[in-house]
């Protein structure tokens, strides 16, 4: 059977050819390049215009491309000079005069950074109602005094104003670049930060290059490649093969995989993004503070911590020591089911009640809500939890139609960000005051308007005490920022709220 032999031979030949081709392509080794670091991006970028930046992936890139007048000292709520070398505040606290450093340059030859660019940046956000506009509601006018001096007038003193300028709204853009590039600016941004934007390959990666005219210490690593690796398992694998040098990870499974492995370094930093249970104080049964306290006493935090591992730092307080004005001296509700049942009985619910809780499906809620459900059942509240996909949850909660829900909230470590969003009456749903809490409006305004830092801090302490006493929300924990890196990656400092600072990183020889 000659043809059979012929067929067999050609099949063999084809297989051999294919295999050798595959091997030849596969074994082209790639050498380690110490001028380039590859970092994980958890999803593709969508817009890098700082006026509209809001998701974590965009922030990862934007924090390296842009710089602001002032910035946070890493890991603290303290502010230090960045583009502005100094500033003065008027006695009434309504006027800020910033002096820009000399010789600041924008990327890609877009010229010097001037007071006019600062004015343009802020005016543009306010006038166009961009996403960041809500941070700048206190701004009255922005005036250019000379090339390097800019005056910002506020309608009311805002003790968090510098913090806001150090956050997303303060990223200075080049007027010339925005006007020249138009819509293109968003995905081809021009800033004056430590890295300039080189290239975006949709769905694949973002490449940055160290800016040789950066005003501060030049970054040690020349190129940063942000590689889009959405899947957590894929990110873990890519760390193992060395395709990623550093990755911010989200799941305990990934953390466990690398935690005890000396071949990797793992950094766990408690963030400033809180997770809390919210009770609707405007309707039964949570209009009664005793019922809210009963819920607070029912939560078994040691079990929660065991389940959530390193991903969430479980807490019984609203603020962490990283916050300005933090005090540990607040009402703490220990895990005490008996006390909880007594409180329920006093409030007229000796047999508890039925409760439906709607939660977002975003991590860590699916892991922690079953514990909460059981904790509530243990004190007689027959709770059932329903999960909504996150975008659906975000629309649903705007109606304010619930007795209890959950709330993830990430803000910089100045208390005003959180308070003015989640605890004042002007923010009743559809705003962020999901608990319809109406007792601290004056205090929040007073603390913000207080010019003396000490007094302002004391007011924030009063607010923390009041909030813990009234307990409109039950704090569950702070989302931790966990980074896994190759052992030779050094200098990692977790960025403020969703940021990623590549400029501190270096490779150890």
């Amino acid at each position, binding site marked *: 059977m000659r043809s059979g032999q012929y067929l067999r031979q050609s*099949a063999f030949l084809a297989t051999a050819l294919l295999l050798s081709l595959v091997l030849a392509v596969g074994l082209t080794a790639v050498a380690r390049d110490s001028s380039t670091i590859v970092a994980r991006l958890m999803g593709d970028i969508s817009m890098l215009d700082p006026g509209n930046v809001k998701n974590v992936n965009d922030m990862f890139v934007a924090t390296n491309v842009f710089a602001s007048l002032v910035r946070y000292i890493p890991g603290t709520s303290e502010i230090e000079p960045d583009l502005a070398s100094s500033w003065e505040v008027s006695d009434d606290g309504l006027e800020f005069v910033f002096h820009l450093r000399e010789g600041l340059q924008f990327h890609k030859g877009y010229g010097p950074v001037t007071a006019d660019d600062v004015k343009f940046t802020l005016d543009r956000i306010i006038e166009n109602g961009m996403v960041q506009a809500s941070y700048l509601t206190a701004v009255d006018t922005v005036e250019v005094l000379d090339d390097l001096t800019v005056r910002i007038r506020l309608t009311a003193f805002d003790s968090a104003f510098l913090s806001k300028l150090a956050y997303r709204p303060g990223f200075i853009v080049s007027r010339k670049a925005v006007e020249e590039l138009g819509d293109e600016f968003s995905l081809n941004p021009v800033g004056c930060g430590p890295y300039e934007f080189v290239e975006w390959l949709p769905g694949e990666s973002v490449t940055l290059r160290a800016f040789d005219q950066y005003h501060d210490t030049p970054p040690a690593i020349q190129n940063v490649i942000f590689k889009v*690796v959405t899947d957590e398992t*894929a990110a873990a694998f890519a760390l193992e093969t060395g395709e990623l040098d550093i990755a911010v990870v989200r799941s305990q499974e990934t953390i466990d995989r690398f935690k005890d492995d000396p071949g990797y370094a793992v950094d766990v930093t408690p963030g400033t993004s809180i997770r809390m249970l919210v009770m609707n104080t405007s309707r039964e049964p949570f209009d009664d503070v005793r019922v809210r306290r009963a819920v607070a006493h029912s939560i078994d935090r040691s079990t929660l911590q065991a389940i959530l591992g390193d991903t969430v730092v479980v807490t019984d307080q609203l603020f962490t020591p990283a916050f300005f004005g933090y005090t540990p001296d607040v009402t703490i509700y220990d895990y005490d089911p008996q006390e909880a049942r007594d409180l329920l009985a006093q409030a007229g619910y000796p047999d508890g009640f039925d409760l439906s809780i709607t939660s977002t499906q975003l991590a860590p809620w699916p892991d922690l809500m079953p514990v909460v459900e059981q904790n509530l059942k243990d004190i007689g509240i027959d709770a059932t939890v329903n999960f909504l996909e996150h975008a659906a949850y975000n629309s649903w909660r705007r109606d304010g139609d619930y007795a209890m829900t959950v709330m993830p909230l990430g803000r910089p470590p100045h208390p005003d960000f959180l308070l003015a969003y989640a605890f004042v009456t002007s923010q009743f749903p559809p705003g962020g005051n999901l608990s319809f809490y109406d007792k601290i409006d004056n205090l929040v305004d007073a603390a913000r308007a207080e010019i003396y830092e000490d007094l302002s801090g004391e007011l924030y302490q009063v607010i923390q005490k009041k909030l813990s006493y009234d307990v409109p929300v039950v704090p569950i924990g702070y989302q931790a920022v966990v980074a896994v890196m190759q052992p030779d990656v050094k200098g990692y400092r977790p960025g403020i709220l969703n940021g990623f600072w590549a400029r501190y990183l270096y490779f150890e020889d």
Partner: protein
Amino acid sequence: MLSYLARRLLLAPITILGLIAVIFVLVRLMPGDPAVTMLGDYATEERVAALRAEMGLDKPWPVQFGVYIGQLLRGNLGESMRMQKEVSWLIGSFFPPTLILALSAMTIAVLVGVSSGIVSAFFHNTKFDYGTTMLAITAYSAPAFWLGLMALFVFGIKLRWFPITGSGSGGTAVDVLRHLVLPAGALGLRQAALVSRMTRTSVLQTLQEDYVRTATAKGLRNSRVLVKHALRNALIPIVTVMGLTLGVLLGGTVVTEVVFSRPGLGKLLVTSVTTRDFQTLQGLVVVWGGIVILINLVIDLVYCWIDPRIRYR
């Protein structure tokens, strides 16, 4: 023939219109407001309302539908509010990696599938036949993502032969190939199993036809009988499966794209759903629908070419 072609071409827009209507309603029935999703949790009610108006979402559905169709007729897929980019531009930049992956997988499926199918048929009920049958059933039973993960684990992590993230776009042709081997292999081999089984059955059937016996009887070589007489007639079902396979591969690369962190339409689709990017979502469905309809049309035309007896009137 020509009138058949004309009829099919006329039907295509109607099919697409139906498809658009379905997806148009479905995205709007999804809970979750695109304006809220876009503006984030700090958004005031006024801003949300303004953005809804800007996106045209405040108008009644029939009006929105009319506007969208009018826009499509002018060849405009609209703008993605999420990225402030033309949807056509987005699809254009995410399509190539998906197309390359699908075509590579298709090539593997056809090369491996057809050749192993023919050999199996020719040596049916031998060890080789049983072996390929077993392999094919195993490969086809395994979910695509599992095959992908296994390939990734063995060749990416243990042996370190191939990279496991990205598509190598922006690099050299070798880079692109290196990134393609594992995902295309995992996708392709699974489809190869299907093509192989189909080819085996089809060739086996034609081998029992009278004209094959006649060809053998008049003294032709076996290989000539196989290629010239049997194979040509066995091709129709094979081509059908190939067409279906390409459709499946174009639409079914989502999981493989996620496992191998590759850019592509699948990932664009998932992001569009989670961010409620209606325009991109609708645009993707229109383009995908169009491609599937086109593939089917091409397959029908290929039938005529393979088998002149088929006349469409």
